[in-house]
């Protein structure tokens, strides 16, 4: 047993409203540069839909991930080492820019410089590749919320695996959103495809990164990743990918996509796993067994043997504690409601998903049934083959059993909590119907519905002793304690003199205050503030002016 730690994520799809805030903040933070205009480390896809890049899930076409050889070993689907080297001069399986979309901007200047005339000037779209006029025909999110209808949705590779009849009825059935980042796999096929060895998995937290100094632009990783989450920067000629916001993770902050998620649907935490078991688990013959195989790789952080082995592997104690508190462990192993995305790619992905129950509930409600009655829900999960098969195509290599089990648990939780909400007695039989106890139900409900910031994101700070310099704490004066001599607020030459507080510290404390506050914004002087926008000018609202020094009435 070789214990390693992995920073992982779970997303609760029931809560995703497809607002794309995660994508936008991620882009602002990481890919707001020339050469990666077309790149979205985080994107939110509408399902059914073609995804980004288009039809990336069709591995017959793109040949991403691993394949099991007849001898039971794994090799990259696009070919082993020798084939890779022979196809290095022109990668035959690389998506072209058109499969993502051609990035563009608008000729805004023309709006200002156009000569006076009868017509209103128009900002024409210009290609960011050539600078010439272009026609916008596709983008990262062209088919958002089923835009384009059946015609585009029919190109969904998952739908195409299902039967003809299903495909036709599907559009009526349901829509949900799938936010995607790099999976930071336990068995990353991008790293295995890189001829230069520039892509590596960090031994401490399992984050998969591209060493920009060692990448030589051979482009094999783009093919190797079945999720198509490695992108080629066409200006620098280097591969880039989601970094799991490692500079933030290292100081204990959640990734940008999690931090800004409006629906609070993302969970971050550690998983301990047995690195020696990964290869064998990824190579099990039956694709349906891959979900269980991956679960068998995870190690219970409460098990004394595992703790001892983790210590022996030099995993710090606070990391072990974090693994014990990990919401990821609870969602995957304890409540068993999270599923991996496309386990059949055999990469052992580490961003898992709680499949959405809301489409099932919606259909029940729309047809006049009680959408929170357990029998109705169980019946619907069984009867609505289309959503279940579709979800199975995404999360369990097509095996409907685990998806059904998860949906039933979510349904039971719904029914169980409704009784509590209505002031009725707790019904243990509802929990027992899905093999849980009432207490477990309560705990699961708490984690899924009301978990606070610290419960959703359990991130131990990087153990490197340079966590200090990551936070730029070295520039802090030891006298800068509350009320201490360094805490003057302003230096001898006015407010902006002296050494400025490093911006990262300022941000860090501000963010922490804001994120752990009970209300949306809770400034200390909230009560004293006056909203001038709805003050009608009559009278003197309290707090408009500071109290007079003499204390007398004005």
């Amino acid at each position, binding site marked *: 047993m*070789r214990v*390693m730690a992995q920073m992982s994520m779970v997303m609760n799809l029931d809560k995703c409203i497809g607002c794309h805030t995660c994508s936008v903040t991620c882009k602002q933070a990481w890919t707001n540069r020339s050469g990666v205009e077309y790149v979205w480390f985080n994107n939110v896809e509408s399902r059914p839909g073609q995804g980004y890049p288009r039809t990336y899930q069709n591995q017959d076409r793109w040949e991403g991930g691993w394949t099991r050889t007849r001898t039971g070993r794994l090799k*990259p689907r696009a070919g082993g*080492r*020798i084939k*890779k*080297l022979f196809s*290095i*001069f*022109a*990668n*035959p399986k*690389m998506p*072209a*820019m058109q499969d993502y979309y051609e990035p563009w901007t608008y000729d805004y200047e023309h709006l200002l410089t156009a000569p006076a005339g009868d017509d209103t000037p128009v900002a024409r779209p210009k*290609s960011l*590749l*050539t*600078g*010439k006029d272009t026609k916008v025909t596709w983008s990262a999110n062209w088919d958002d919320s089923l835009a384009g209808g059946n015609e585009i949705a029919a190109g969904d590779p998952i739908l195409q695996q299902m039967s003809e009849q299903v495909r036709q009825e599907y559009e009526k059935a349901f829509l949900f959103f799938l936010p995607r980042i790099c999976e930071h796999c336990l*068995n*990353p096929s991008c*790293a*295995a495809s*890189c*001829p*230069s*060895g520039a*892509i*590596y*998995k*960090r*031994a*401490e*937290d399992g984050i998969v990164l591209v*060493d*920009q*100094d*060692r*990448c*030589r*632009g*051979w*482009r094999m990783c783009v093919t190797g990743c079945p999720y198509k989450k490695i992108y*080629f920067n*066409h*200006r*620098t*000629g*280097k591969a880039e990918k989601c970094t799991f916001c490692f500079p933030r993770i*290292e100081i204990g902050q959640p990734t940008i996509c999690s931090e800004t998620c409006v629906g609070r649907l993302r969970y971050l935490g550690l998983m301990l796993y047995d690195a*020696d078991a990964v290869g064998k688990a990824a190579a099990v013959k039956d694709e349906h067994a891959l979900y269980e195989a991956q679960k068998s790789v995870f190690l219970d952080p409460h098990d004394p043997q595992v703790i001892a082995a983790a210590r022996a*592997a*030099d*995993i*710090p104690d606070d990391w072990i504690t974090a693994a014990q508190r990990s919401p990821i462990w609870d969602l995957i192993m304890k409540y068993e409601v999270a599923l991996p995305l496309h386990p059949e790619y055999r990469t052992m992905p580490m961003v898992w998903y709680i499949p959405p129950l809301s489409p099932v509930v919606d259909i029940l409600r729309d047809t006049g049934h009680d959408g929170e009655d357990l029998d109705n829900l169980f019946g619907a999960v069984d009867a609505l083959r289309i959503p279940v098969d579709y979800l199975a195509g995404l999360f369990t290599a097509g095996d409907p059993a685990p998806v059904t089990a998860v949906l039933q648990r979510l349904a039971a939780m719904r029914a169980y909590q409704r009784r509590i909400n209505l002031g009725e007695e707790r019904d243990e039989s509802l929990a027992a119907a899905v093999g849980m106890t009432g207490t477990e139900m309560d705990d699961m409900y708490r984690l899924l519905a009301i978990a606070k910031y610290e419960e959703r994101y359990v991130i131990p700070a*990087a*153990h*490197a*002793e340079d966590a200090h310099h990551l936070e730029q704490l070295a520039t802090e004066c030891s006298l800068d304690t509350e009320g201490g001599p360094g805490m003057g607020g302003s230096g001898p030459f006015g407010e902006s003199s002296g050494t400025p507080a490093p911006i990262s510290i300022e941000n860090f404390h501000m963010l922490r205050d804001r994120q752990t506050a009970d209300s949306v914004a809770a400034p200390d002087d909230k009560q004293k503030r006056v909203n001038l926008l709805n003050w009608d000018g009559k009278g003197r609202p309290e707090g408009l002016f500071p109290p007079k020094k003499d204390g007398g009435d004005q």
Partner: protein
Amino acid sequence: MNVLLWVVFPYLCIAVLVGGLIWRYRYDKFGWTTRSSQLYESAVLRWGSPMFHFGVLMVLVGHVGGLIIPKSWTEAVGITEHAYHLMAVFVGTVAGFCTLIGMAILIARRRLTGPVFAATTRNDKAMYVVLAAVIVLGLWSTLRANVSGDGYDYRETISPWFRSLFYLSPDPGIMAAVPIGFQIHIIAAFALFAFWPFTRLVHAFSAPVGYLTRPYVPYRSRDTRPGLRPSRPGWEGPPKLPARRDRG
């Protein structure tokens, strides 16, 4: 003049090549890439690029064989001059034309595909001129020697001179009698070597042969400085975390 062309100039170019590579590796690892344009256009590249690269690799093997292996060695194993010559001309011409046609396809693609042309730098254009000149001159000299005569036995003249550069006792005298076509080809080739470290051609020096022996998934620790780590041999299995350092 002979000394300048066949002693000073080659050494100067080799020095610039070596020094330039070291400098580039130390200060511009980030810029050390193929700068592939496949993302923009891949249908034409699929034909042109393998043709050019495999052709040029064969040409390289031919040059190594012809320039570095002495004639006496091949004759010692029973290959007559005639047999060697036939083989070299046949394989060399095929490889040369592969390279030339591949390069023509690639240059045409570069000029005619909008995004690819937009991503072409002045440095690239200059590099293409020099590279094309070397290839065309080499092919032309070989063909002319073989079409108009019985061919030219460069292994009597150019090869000993080339090897003598590495013995540090260069003999410019032999080169003076070499046909002018070969002379220009050689001068152009050394010019290309000197230009090499400052172009995208550097990617040739990072040919990823290590991939064949490496384990599929590399692990690295956050602890040490990135980019300076020796690669881990495959037989060690997945890595362990570095031992914890106690705070002093």
